């Protein structure tokens, strides 16, 4: 019996059941904390017509940008997609749909999805094009827009360390959207740099408790830097 052992042995197994047309939530901000091996596996697998929810869409040739090469993404839900020439081309050619969502609203939509909150009101975007067609309500004299939660058929997540129970911690700002995606996936797959012995991680330190994690795999990471900036 596997009990709470969430480990799988191959990336193929990690994404078993991912099918054409599904919605995938991906952690990461820019190229920081992206599940780079799980993305590469989706490319290898050739799954098509995906809706991908991620703050950005990688860059040309790396991260989610890889999935544009064979037109595997039908729709992106993101806050900023300006780093990617292929994205631009497919968008202009009408091959790709994009739903631009304010970054905080995107994070909150995932958080709400994972927490079973179907929708929430936010002042963000009121009076702007992104509020068009959405319900507006006033609270204490201020206008708020109704935004719906997001869940995914799959969530792909990059952690730093985990134990076999799927308790995950993240490193520095590589946390970003990862814990939010982890909680909002029907099937949540986490790849980490190291799987440690149970008990090594302090219970109070755990950032994604294992209850959210279905599959866990240990990988090696390139961790490409998007804007290398140093001081003089």
């Amino acid at each position, binding site marked *: 019996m596997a009990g709470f052992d969430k480990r799988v042995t191959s990336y193929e197994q990690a994404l078993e059941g991912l099918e054409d047309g599904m919605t995938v939530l991906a952690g990461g*901000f*820019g*190229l*920081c*904390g992206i599940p780079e091996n799980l993305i590469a596996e989706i490319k290898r697998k050739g799954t098509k017509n995906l809706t991908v929810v991620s*703050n950005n869409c990688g860059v040309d040739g790396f991260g989610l940008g890889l999935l544009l090469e064979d037109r595997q993404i039908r729709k992106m839900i*993101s*806050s*900023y*997609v*300006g780093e990617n020439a292929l994205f*631009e081309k497919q*968008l*202009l050619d009408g091959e790709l749909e994009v739903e*631009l969502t*304010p*970054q*905080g*609203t995107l*994070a*909150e939509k*995932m*958080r709400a999805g994972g927490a079973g909150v179907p929708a929430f009101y*936010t*002042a*963000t*975007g*009121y*009076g*702007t*094009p*992104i509020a068009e067609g959405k319900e507006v309500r006033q609270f204490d004299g201020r206008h708020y827009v109704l935004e719906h939660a997001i869940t995914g058929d799959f969530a792909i997540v990059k952690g*730093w360390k985990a134990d076999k129970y799927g308790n995950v911690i993240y*490193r*520095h*700002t*590589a*946390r*970003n*959207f*990862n*814990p*939010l995606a982890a909680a909002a996936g029907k099937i949540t797959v986490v790849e980490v740099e190291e799987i440690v012995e149970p008990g090594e991680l302090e219970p109070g330190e755990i*950032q994604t408790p294992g209850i959210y994690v279905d599959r866990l795999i240990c990988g090696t990471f390139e*961790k*490409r*830097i*998007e*804007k*290398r*900036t*140093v*001081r003089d």
Partner: protein
Amino acid sequence: MALTREQMAQRVAGELKDGFYVNLGIGIPTLVANYVPVGMEVMLQSENGLLGMGPFPTEDEIDPDMINAGKQTVTARIGASIMDSAEAFAMIRGGHIDLTVLGAFQVDVLGNIASWMVPGKLIKGMGGAMDLVAGAENIIVTMTHASKDGESKLLQRCTLPLTGAGCIKRILTDLAYLEIDQGAFVLKERAPGVSVGEIVEKTAGELVVPDHVPEMRFA
């Protein structure tokens, strides 16, 4: 003389107060960090999930897991904390940030701001700008007073799609510091050597000019 980018940053730094949590946008706002007065402690927030941003790293300190909201490698200062993006925006949307500084294409007399989209040009996205303008009480917009073609960016009504409605009260341009009050811009300070006449000429929206408009002073 119109202010340089550095002088604009220096003037904005005069609005910092000891103990402030501050979010600085990309461009001129980022430069404000260079002019924090000596002895004053402020904590910079980066909306990807870092409160207490330090300087850029040395070559040896570069860490791909430590970046700011502009995706640049950074460091965390002593006293910093790191959180997920929902919590980083909960701070913003919950009104916990003391000062937000960001750029814009246009601002109008109703406090509307347009900063993310020019129709007909490629749309890259709003990132966190809509959350920042909706969540913060205390916002300073920094931008040039007029475009390179000489068109005013201070308008009666924004013509570009909005980032936020009715959220801006303070603007620093390369020519002036202005506030928005009762449906008009109010000229509060002028850049050294810039005449009131030039500011009036380059402001398209309704502008209130007090009898005395002092020259700007720098922190």
